[in-house]
């Protein structure tokens, strides 16, 4: 059984949900503590959502200096699968494991909604159980989720297929937080590190995730976790 670490920073909120998602996908969740520079030999790591250190500086800017991040950054560069969700995505950007930055939503308010996404890159460690171009619905909830990078970086991401997920925007509408080019998630070149603002860990159990009115079973997020577990086995 794959052992997937879930890091708890002060202010992490969705760490329990991420651990549950790992368990429901058939893996063994291992809780990692921000203050310990020890990955406990896990096979993959999830940096969960929340408000680490209250988001009082830039989101993720303090957490990225946590002792646990030292071995994590090294391991990620060595190929360890790492998924950053929401605040975890922000931490990955601050740690320069992924390009770009997340800024305050363009409409200035927190948004919590069932969000339709398109899987653009189904070849990463965390998305290979999806079909390329497949649309899924998972919750989105953030105040600072607008993805930004300079034009050259955005062009490079697009060109190299590193845009992992995109918001599906109804015609004439706009994406939920002002993200450049509707980007919801990005991957590194090796495909082992993925960061996204939406919360797949909140769409793993029917009845506790996206509302039935979305026309989905509410479990579209589960394959993020089964993807990485399958990869570990093979």
């Amino acid at each position, binding site marked *: 059984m794959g052992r997937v670490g879930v890091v708890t920073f002060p202010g992490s*909120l969705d760490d329990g949900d991420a651990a549950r998602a790992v368990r429901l996908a058939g893996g063994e969740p291992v809780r990692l503590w921000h203050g310990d520079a020890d990955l406990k030999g896990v096979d993959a790591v999830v940096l969960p959502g929340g*408000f680490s250190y209250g*988001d*009082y500086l830039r989101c993720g800017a303090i957490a990225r200096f946590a002792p646990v991040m030292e071995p994590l950054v090294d391991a990620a560069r060595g190929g360890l699968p790492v998924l950053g969700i929401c605040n975890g995505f922000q931490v990955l950007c601050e740690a320069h494991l992924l390009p770009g930055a997340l800024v305050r939503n363009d409409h200035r308010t927190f948004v*919590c*909604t069932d969000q339709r996404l398109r899987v653009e890159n189904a070849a990463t460690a965390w998305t290979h159980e999806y079909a390329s171009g497949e649309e899924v619905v998972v919750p989105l909830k953030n105040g600072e989720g607008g993805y930004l990078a300079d034009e050259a970086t955005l062009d490079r991401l697009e060109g190299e297929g590193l845009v992992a997920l995109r918001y599906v925007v109804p015609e004439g509408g706009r994406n939920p937080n002002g993200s450049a080019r509707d980007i919801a998630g990005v991957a590194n070149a090796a495909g082992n590190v993925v960061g996204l603002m939406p919360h797949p860990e*909140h769409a793993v159990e029917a009845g*506790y995730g996206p509302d039935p009115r979305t026309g989905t079973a509410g479990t579209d997020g589960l394959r993020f976790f089964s993807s990485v577990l399958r990869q570990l086995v093979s």
Partner: protein
Amino acid sequence: MAEPTTATARPDATGGSGGALDTVERAAATPDVAQPWRELGLREEEHARIREILGRRPTSAELAMYSVMWSEHCSYKSSKVHLRQFGEKTTEAMREHLMVGIGENAGVVDIGDGWAVTFKVESHNHPSFVEPHQGAATGVGGIVRDILAMGARPVAVMDQLRFGAVDHPDTARVVHGVVAGVGGYGNCLGLPNIGGEVVFDAVYQGNPLVNALAVGVMRHEDLHLANATGAGNKVVLFGARTGGDGIGGVSVLASETFDATGPAKRPSVQVGDPFAEKVLIECCLELFRAGVVEGIQDLGGAGLSCATSELASAGDGGMHVELDRVLLRDPSLSPEEILMSESQERMMAVVRPEHLERFLEVVRRWDVETSVLGEVTDTGRLVVTWHGEVVVDVPPRTVAHDGPVYERPYARPSWQDALQADSAAALARPTSGEDLRATLLRLVGSPNLADKGWVTDQYDRYVLGNTALATPDDAGVVRVDEATGLGVAVSTDANGRYGYLDPYAGAQLALAEAYRNVATVGARPLAVTDCLNFGSPEDPDVMWQFSEAVTGLADACQVLGVPVTGGNVSLYNSTADTPIHPTPVVGVLGVLDDVARRTPSGWRAPGQALYLLGTTRLELDGSAWAEVEHGHLGGRPPAVDLEAERLLGDVLVNASRDGLVDAAHDLSEGGLAQAVVEGCLRYGVGARVWLDELCERDGVDATTALFSESTARVLVSVPRSEEVRFTDVCSARRQPALRVGVVDEPGEAAALDVQGLFTVPVAELRAASTATLREAFGA
């Protein structure tokens, strides 16, 4: 107690007689020193009573403590004589599931399988008008700490918000601030917001109501009561540092009406730090788990004055505190200010000496600052020293519990009869299908019936992964036990318009609706919490309203068999000289053996039968129809029928358990029309409805059938395969049930068809419902 904050009158640390510390010794030696008791909100007889208790004048620190603890907000001095009914009218049978009742930080209910749930609603009204964002934020923070102090993990929040008229120029300021404050704090704590209320009415223009409810979960053995027992045990203050915020707030801000000529109060509303509170939650839960605390008390209104006196009087009766050991944000604070400070995110623990080292290890792990202030004693005195000199030496009960009790005069207002005589039955009603259609759309888009997504989409409802239902369903539902599906449902309600027409009935109607909502989702109602928002107790009209409402609620709780477990009173709520409508917010908690069986408020399966349970009468007084169409408020609120509510609740809970209904939605404001509209909007599925049989059976016209707000009614969607069983159950129980429609198609062509009268596409209903708040408040 949470309503805090502000500094207007600062007690003079010198006792008004030069630079020396005002010690007990000095107070005894200088009996005639003038003291600012009046500025601190004490009345002459209260001041005299303090002198009598102490046998001398109080020191300035003692004066500070008594003044905050004897304020209306902390002492309940005007409401106490009425609130006693809640305890007196709770029968033994009602206590069956009650583990902790009124008087502790929050009530605790046994929900079975070794699980217990604690919940409570509290007000933060006045701070939220002065500084909406921080006022609302710290309201959430305070109620969550109350839940935490019981030993429970907080698992959900709800908020009950009442604002001025939607189109008043000041309303947007308050709405934006309050919603951002509730969301900003709750989201950052990682607590799902599962429901609440948003109401607009000009009576709340200068005095919005911001109530917050929190729910916590624990195993039976984790229950902790906050008391200071065991002489020699350490008294430890931990969490945020103490600053100059909210000094005297309880006595000044929460207990007096806003006065346009008074000093500006903005600077002293506390600033919440949700990150500090999140860390404090995890830290406290680890302390409980480690078994290293005897009890934990939160610091809210009245700060250290409250925590020390309440802990001491609930325990062995004595405590010694070295006040100079309190960690400060502002080193210039005087002992009086430290005792009165309402800095947020602080807790006080009682720790056995042998556990102290392990306690300190836990708080260090969470980087929580901590200071050992003193210890529990058996002297029966609360003694506070400042650098070795005694500045407080009082019997703690006299501070915490023996405050003044007033029998305020009350009398039925002279205008009440005329108000009740002015019935809405005389108002012009639409007759044609076209007029009814237009009326329905105006109601659907009216601020109080419109979609509240603009508000609730700013709150995280997913965190913790146990939310089974949230707004817009009838009640919030959270799973407690992942293995069995055991869970709880909570709903809160109040209708100030009903309360104004008849406060006794108004309180009962609030309870009846919350009870019905909980049963509608399939949960068995177990317990009640309330937040009683009223005007000034010094106004006999208001005091009568208060007395009527408390009596009404206590009587109704007895009939329904659900005990009040705790809550809060907020008085002095008025806009200029006009008191708010009596607004008793009532929360009901129910239990579901398996939340997978919960019933949502909307239908999905075309062909299912829609049954209306209950009886419809001509009851348009106080209704949304009367307000929206005629700007009218008069007459008598809908009749209360608690036996009918109880029967209906039973039928609904059993139908949900046995899978007889797929959807259920309570009828309340806006009547049958609004219930049908919301049932369609929930999943975008249409319905065909006919009114003829209903009008004939109940002897009402179409307007009444659509918009009357008669109680004890619910609309359910019944699968064809279960229709016979369902109607058999209803007739066996003598539950009135009438087939009034059928679920129609989903999709773009979905429509609500009221046969023979009018048709409205669901898309048009949605546009009317969602536009209102978005247009009023942006994006």
